[in-house]
């Protein structure tokens, strides 16, 4: 299918074919919009590196109550989103509702976990405190030293690679025209975005462009300075182990080990995802000896049985970090350019709600109320400051 047929152009061009870009494209096309999407290698970024935790509760942090509300909404939307996607594509999306167990390794970690439990209670979030023995009854291979646990039944997971494959199929089936090429913004020297310009020189005219380029969102060719807050890459190293037929773990495990965090996410098809480090070294995607060592050390401390498992993958992903860790959703300062980026640690979780909010904006002209607080212009004071120094 071509985007440059007899018709003058598309209504929507999406820049980025990760989970967010594909979901936006699929939802927009399902609502009858003509959509094209450009990405040199769809799903090669954070979408395939991520662990796929859908964890609004265990990801709740002090001072991020507004983001928590959006995360909870998206978690609640997941079952229906997955059902529609699987029915439409006849592909499994790897949704897993076995819940999450958080555990504490030593006394200091136990104090932190207890504080987390009080924080959950204050916010009305559903979590149950367990003793170390109770935690081991749920997951018998936990290390004997585990002091305490917190069971969060509502924090689920999805196999983000299966989800991406399904979304890619859904987008194409819904009529989205996919260009496997690098693209920049097309402005034709005007104050408005006119579509996308592929590296080949091919033009994809469109009324609206949705920017869903993850950590590369601020690096896009043709993006005028200052039209959206800067998105920066936050590197995470993550491992994948192969699990035997008898799994060493049956639900997502999040552990605090001597003040360090590690998570282990077991897939039903026999994979164990272990993550993740966090540092800011630009677009460096190297895997380091120290990163792998620390992940395995902490994982082994709480689940000694992993030492026998084959290590099948060590890679990095670059989280798209916004200034306040929350996504940028909606109109940017460049007319026609809509942001759907900056999801930081919550891209997989926020995929359904982002897709629906942006589809609403495209078809009805306004973001739904729940998404309005995440408008890119919320850093207005910082914008002014940036304008005065000429740099964001």
């Amino acid at each position, binding site marked *: 299918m071509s985007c440059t047929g007899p018709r003058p152009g598309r209504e929507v061009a999406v820049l980025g074919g990760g989970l967010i870009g594909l979901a936006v494209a699929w939802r927009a096309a399902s609502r009858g919009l003509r959509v094209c999407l450009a990405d040199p290698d769809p799903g090669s970024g954070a979408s395939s590196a991520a662990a796929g935790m859908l964890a609004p509760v265990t990801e709740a*942090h*002090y*001072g*991020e109550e507004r983001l928590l509300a959006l995360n909870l909404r998206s978690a609640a939307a997941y079952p229906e989103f997955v059902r529609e996607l699987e029915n439409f594509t006849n592909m499994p999306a790897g949704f897993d509702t076995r819940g999450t167990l958080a555990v504490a390794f030593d006394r200091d970690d136990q104090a932190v976990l207890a504080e987390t439990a009080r924080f959950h209670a204050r916010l009305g979030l559903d979590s149950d405190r367990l003793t170390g023995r109770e935690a081991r009854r749920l997951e018998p291979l936990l290390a004997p030293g585990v002091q305490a646990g917190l069971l969060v039944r509502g924090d689920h997971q999805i196999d983000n690679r299966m989800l991406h494959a399904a979304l890619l199929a859904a987008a194409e089936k819904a009529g989205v025209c996919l260009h496997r090429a690098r693209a920049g913004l097309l402005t034709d020297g005007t104050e408005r975005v006119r579509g996308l310009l592929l590296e080949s020189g091919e033009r994809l005219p469109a009324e609206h462009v949705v920017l869903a380029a993850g950590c590369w969102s*601020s690096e896009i060719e043709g993006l005028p300075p200052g039209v959206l807050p*800067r*998105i*920066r*890459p936050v590197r995470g190293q993550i491992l994948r182990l192969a699990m035997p037929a008898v799994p060493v773990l049956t639900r997502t495990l999040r552990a605090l080990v*001597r*003040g360090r965090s590690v998570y282990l996410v077991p897939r039903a098809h026999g994979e164990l995802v272990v993550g993740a480090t966090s*540092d*800011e*070294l*630009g677009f*460096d995607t190297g895997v380091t000896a120290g990163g792998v060592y620390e992940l395995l050390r902490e994982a082994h401390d709480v689940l000694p049985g992993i030492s026998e498992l084959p290590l099948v993958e060590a890679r990095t992903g670059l989280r798209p*970090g916004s*200034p*306040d*860790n929350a996504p940028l959703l909606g109109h940017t300062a460049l007319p026609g350019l809509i942001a759907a980026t900056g999801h930081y640690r919550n891209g997989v979780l926020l995929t359904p709600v982002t897709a629906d909010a942006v589809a609403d904006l495209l078809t009805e002209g306004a973001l739904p109320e729940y998404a309005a607080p995440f408008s890119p212009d919320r*850093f207005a004071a*910082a914008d002014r*400051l*940036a304008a005065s*120094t000429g740099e*964001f």
Partner: protein
Amino acid sequence: MSDTDTLRIAGRDFGSRLIMGTGGAPSLEILREALTVSGTRLTTVAMRRVAAGTRGSILDLLAELDIALLPNTAGCLTAGDAVLTARLAREALGTDWVKLEVIADEHTLLPDPVELLEAARTLVEDGFTVLPYTNDDPVLARRLEEAGCAAVMPLGSPIGSGLGIRNPHNIELMVEAAGVPVILDAGIGSASDAALAMELGCAGVLLASAVTRAQRPALMAAAMRDAVAAGRACHEAGRIPRRRYARASSPSRDETPAF
């Protein structure tokens, strides 16, 4: 104390005696708010966790807030590693100031005194302005000063522990003997810890976790700012001697002026 009270290190004046660290901040926006409220003029960043030239990073934020950057060698376990990290930082950031950390192990994060002194000597010789993170050991502090360090920065208790100042007597001994600023660096948990450090005569306080990991970082930054100012004022004002028995604050007869 007056409005012109400044922290002077190696001939450079800073308008605040609170030095901030950035580790543990939940987001850049929260860090921005906390740093702004704290009034800090000097902030330390771990060189292993950031890269110069990454736009939108902590380094950009410090430049925007006009806060001086103090690179640190957190995570280094040997003198060689710390020296290399400091040199890379100098090359990348164009500053020869370094907060020198050489830790003994990852569990306690206590300074390794032997490696620390070795690294300090090498870096001073290499032209660095060295601010070493050290144990609360007055003798080691003296050796670091003799090696040419621009300040000494003893811990109150282990990094991130929030256990406060475990050996105030040693901190006092260090302050008494030192010809360079003594800056309390590590272990601060609450505002009273920061105030105590200043009352003991420290020239400044360096803290990170106490603010960045607080439930409301900006509010805690305000508390620390005020505590440092209060502790400093208290130290300068000269506290009353401790007495065994009460002494009425409104005397019933004339007092001799001197006693």
